[in-house]
């Protein structure tokens, strides 16, 4: 690769460079009260994967949306394949070879996978009569080529967030694109899916194509990116070959300060009583037999592959999915949570993995979103809302979480993806829960903020709160959890103490076939020495 000679003066590489697929100079995009992009530069060279990194709200998605014709720029020069780039509308961009996978899913949930992929370009007689079989074949062929095992005829509403992300990827790759823009494609993916996505990218890259790859998962950049560009507050900071880049200085360039990444969980003071005990929980079709317990002040990781049923386990537990079997005891007393509201009243909160559909009130303000869970017990007297109190608390929480917004009256839909995630987390931090279930809490959150959230969770645990952390990000699970429960095909196949847990042991359990019942008991016993009080003693 010939990039070294260029990145001496990356920002100012001469205009007519044949190697340049994309060339952006001085891009500006303003929103009311927000200057999303100011003087942004970007070069994408033929044959490279360019990683674009920056804090939440730095302007990554905005820049990509400019290139993809979603937004119209306020200023800047844009060149594509050496010629000035003019796009009118997303479709036009795609047809010019600029394909984008947006950070947020943009699918039609009532249509099938195939219909979604080819919407607007479907095979049709006289451009009117559809040809379902042809469409299906086309889609099947594409999915096979991409090695995705998705049923082209499956309705999108039946797919997991992860699977829906794959549909988006397939859609983007179905255009023969020169430039492929991926805005946090792996946020909803776990290790395996991420790996297969990287495989796709490697196959996509030829001497004439290029990829812009946005991610907050630093460790994966090294695996896939040739070059990394750092931006901050809508401005170009630096770009350097991945080979020469150390994680630390990338992060430092990103956040403008050094972040010390913690290692391993703070050790839990043992002998804490069991606060929550779940036995034989079943919620068809995705949860077969979930048995685990949670100690006060403990962070219990819940790991597993996509479709393992972790989300369902959590939702069945709090009563937002039907249960067919299983007993739950909370503080030693048997309970049946009738609804999330019921669970919340008893001090159990659940943060959904799907912030857009199940988390946010997109058309509402930051304050309205954050105050929601705590409203009834913190911000009202006799049914009247204490708006001041709520406002102040929300402002506080936002400051703590570094929520990037002009003010708390900003509509959440105008916030960056990661910032939105912070808002939903803030919602539960405002309510004083004893048990918090975080489902993919750091999805889309930048490294700096991640560490802060880890800190927060640690502090919550230290303050005696009990946390269940569902995450597909193994390093994160290992970094946070005192114990790690692993799910496979709807069963808890094992619970590992912090000491014994590592990527291998987790993956082993995550892929364990279903002699689950046995293996669960085994791990139970070996757990009793890692943590003295297991559920039985906990009961008294």
């Amino acid at each position, binding site marked *: 690769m010939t990039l070294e000679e260029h990145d001496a003066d990356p920002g100012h590489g001469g205009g007519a460079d044949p190697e340049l697929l994309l060339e952006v100079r001085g891009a500006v995009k303003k929103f009311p009260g927000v200057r999303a992009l100011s003087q942004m530069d970007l070069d994408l060279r033929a044959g490279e994967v360019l990683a674009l990194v920056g804090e939440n709200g730095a302007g990554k998605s905005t820049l990509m949306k400019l290139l993809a014709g*979603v937004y119209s720029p306020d200023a800047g020069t844009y060149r594509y394949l050496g010629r000035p780039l003019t796009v009118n*509308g*997303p*479709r036009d961009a*795609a047809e010019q070879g600029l394909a984008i996978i*947006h950070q947020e*899913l*943009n*699918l*039609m*949930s*009532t*249509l*099938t996978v195939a*219909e*979604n992929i080819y*919407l*607007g*370009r*479907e095979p*049709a007689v006289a*451009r*009117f*009569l*559809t040809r*379902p079989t042809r469409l299906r074949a086309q889609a099947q062929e594409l999915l096979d080529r991409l090695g995705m095992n998705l*049923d082209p*005829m*499956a*309705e*999108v*509403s*039946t*797919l*997991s*967030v992860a699977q*829906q992300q794959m549909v988006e990827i397939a859609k983007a790759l179905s255009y023969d694109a020169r430039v492929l823009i991926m805005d946090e494609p792996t946020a909803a993916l776990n290790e395996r899916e991420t790996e297969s996505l990287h495989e796709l990218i490697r196959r996509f890259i030829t001497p004439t194509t290029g990829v812009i790859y946005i991610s907050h998962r630093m460790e994966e950049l090294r695996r896939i990116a040739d070059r990394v560009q750092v931006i901050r507050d809508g401005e170009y900071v630096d770009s350097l070959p991945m080979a020469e880049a150390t994680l630390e200085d990338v992060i430092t360039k990103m956040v403008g300060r050094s972040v010390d990444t913690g290692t391993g969980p703070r050790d839990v003071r043992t002998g804490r009583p069991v606060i929550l005990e779940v036995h034989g929980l079943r919620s*068809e*079709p995705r949860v077969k037999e979930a048995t685990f317990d949670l100690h006060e002040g403990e962070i219990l990781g819940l790991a597993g592959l996509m479709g393992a049923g972790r*989300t*369902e386990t959590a*939702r069945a537990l709090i*009563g*937002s*999915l*039907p249960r067919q079997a299983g007993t739950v005891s909370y503080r030693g007393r048997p309970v049946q949570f*009738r*609804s*999330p509201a019921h669970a919340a009243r008893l001090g159990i909160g659940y943060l*959904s993995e*799907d912030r857009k*559909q*199940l988390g946010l009130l997109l058309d509402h303000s930051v304050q309205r979103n954050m105050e929601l869970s705590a409203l009834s017990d913190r911000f009202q007297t006799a049914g009247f809302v204490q708006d001041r109190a709520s406002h102040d608390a929300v402002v506080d929480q936002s400051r703590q979480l570094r929520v990037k917004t002009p003010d708390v009256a900003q509509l959440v839909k105008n916030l960056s993806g990661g910032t939105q995630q912070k808002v939903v987390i803030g919602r539960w931090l405002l309510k004083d829960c004893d048990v918090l279930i975080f489902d993919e809490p750091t999805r889309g959150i930048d490294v700096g903020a991640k560490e802060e959230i880890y800190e927060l969770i640690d502090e919550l645990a230290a303050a005696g709160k009990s946390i269940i952390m569902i995450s597909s990000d193994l390093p994160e699970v290992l970094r946070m959890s005192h114990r790690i429960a692993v799910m496979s095909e709807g069963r808890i196949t094992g619970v590992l103490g912090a000491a014994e847990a590592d990527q291998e042991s987790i993956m082993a359990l995550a892929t364990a076939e279903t002699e689950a019942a046995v293996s669960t008991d085994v791990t139970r016993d070996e757990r009793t020495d890692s943590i003295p009080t297991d559920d039985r003693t906990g009961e008294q």
Partner: protein
Amino acid sequence: MSTTTTATAADQERQSARRGPSWRSRLQQMLAAGTLVLIFIAFSIASPEIFPTWGNIVTILYSTVVIGLLALGATFVITTAGIDLSVGTAMALCAVMSGLFIVNWGLPVPVGILLAILFGGLVGLVNGINVAILDLPPFIATLAMMMVAGGLALVFSGAAPIYFEAPSYMWVSTGSLIPSVPNAVLVLLVGAVIAAVLMSRTVLGRYTMAIGANREAAELAGVGVTKWLMIVYTVGGLFTGLAGVMISARLGSAQPATGMGYELDAIAAVVIGGTSLSGGRGTIVGTMIGALIISTLTNGLQILSIPQEWQDVLLGAVILVAVFIDRLRKRSGRTS
């Protein structure tokens, strides 16, 4: 409402997850159909020698025609997560136009009918422009059109019925190409087939659902949402125009003041049939069944000569039950 996508939807859809949408809507139709059969059996038992006779079945079908046609058009509009409250009075307006064309201007019957139908399309197009280009909420845009069309029907007709002389016009509704099957019923049948093809076999249907499911996503995918929305409302209008022709052919006159209230029956038929008001899903077969459920109930209650004040009560109750049965499946995957 349309936020009911991905995960929770996913949860609710469990059963049908792998089978995909076709299976799903088929199931829905089966359920609606089940209710219809149930109702039919019930009435047949209650009045064995009158209700289940061919004569009465024809009566039922005949009384389904107008609502059925309006409901067919409404299905497209509703599938885009829209609504059309103007169909009732617009139907009256189209009937009046048909009267003007044929009686006052003396155009040949077929031409007049065609023009009346096209006029319906025009009304629909105006709705489409208001919704797609002016970006007005469908409810209010079509509510306004309801008033305008109702007023114009009176203006154009001089607030008096227009009586058709040409028997060939009445024949369109009352004649029988096929012995003992009134043409009106055939028209409804043909209309339903056309609608079904449009909905399930053409890009129009595909885009209709796409827009209803997620308008912005459809836009991003390059679907000309504005254009297609206008087309959808126009299609709805064409069915309204046809309904206008059929009702005036049945009555032998264009009644300018009639029509108010039909819109709700039409929408009810669509929803009972399983099409969701939040858009994204539309089933023509379901709509037909929905329309039949309403007209069968009305007919049956009148055949049993239930006191009129009770007829409404029962009608309402049965509609609730019908929709509830259809809902049960969805709820089965749900708590709270």
